[in-house]
């Protein structure tokens, strides 16, 4: 097939991901960064769907672009965060951090592209879709205890957030 639709969709949303991430990096106002992060997360949901993870695509939109980013925008507006002032960052970040990041990216890209053939291809359809019932069968049968433990974790996090953000009684 000359015109590969799957590859085109992957390239569009992959480019959208990278553009959103770069916009997060370059924008100076936190609210612009938050909105571009929503673009990244929603395009990632599309990529999850392409990889046959339908439940995670829905959860990505609801939990990440919905709940977490609303929390972020809420806090940005609550604290009235303005444009960040440009200060000179730490010397260690410039001397070690950025060469380290560039080396990491180059190394990972080189390794992934050199084992491109053994890694194989992602296919659309053909029984590759992991349905919600497949996922829940593992989650509620084999991993029931970790699932319940995470609910306790969330309860503790709620209590901690309330205790931390509460105004001190003076």
């Amino acid at each position, binding site marked *: 097939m000359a015109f590969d639709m799957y590859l085109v969709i992957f390239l569009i949303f992959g480019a959208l991901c*990278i553009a959103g991430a770069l916009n997060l990096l370059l924008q100076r106002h936190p609210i612009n960064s938050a909105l571009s992060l929503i673009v990244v997360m929603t395009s990632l949901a599309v990529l999850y769907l392409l990889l046959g*993870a339908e439940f995670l695509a829905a959860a990505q939109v609801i939990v990440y672009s919905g709940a977490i980013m609303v929390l972020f925008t809420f*806090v940005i507006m609550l604290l009235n*965060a303005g444009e960040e002032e440009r200060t000179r960052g730490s010397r260690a970040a410039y001397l070690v951090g950025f060469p380290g990041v560039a080396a990491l990216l180059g190394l990972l890209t080189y390794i992934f592209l050199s084992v491109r053939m053994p890694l194989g291809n992602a296919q659309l359809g053909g029984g590759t879709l992991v349905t919600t019932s497949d996922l829940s069968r593992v989650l509620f049968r084999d991993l029931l205890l*970790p699932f319940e433990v995470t609910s306790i*974790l969330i309860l503790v*996090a709620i209590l901690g957030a309330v205790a*931390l953000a509460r105004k001190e009684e003076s």
Partner: protein
Amino acid sequence: MVVPIAYYLVLSAILFSIGVAAFLIKRNIITVFMSIELMLNAVNLTFVAFAHQWHQVSGQIFVFFVMVVAAAEAAVGLAIIIAIFRARNTLNVDQVNLMKL
């Protein structure tokens, strides 16, 4: 109708590197926190890609737990940011360098 899994992994590596760079460059504590979320998302993409490759559900279960923990972490982290702002009236990480006021 195929895309090499390696492309997904490279995309995830790019997103992770942008997240690390934003973590180093950004001076606003909320944006620093957002770049951590970006790194978590990049790692999630790797998990889903490998789960697809091996036809395993456990990779997606991992992503599910990462999402749950990230939600809890965002709630606590933002509460800490609010507490820091109350105590110091600034969001600049350069000015938050003392443990005691």
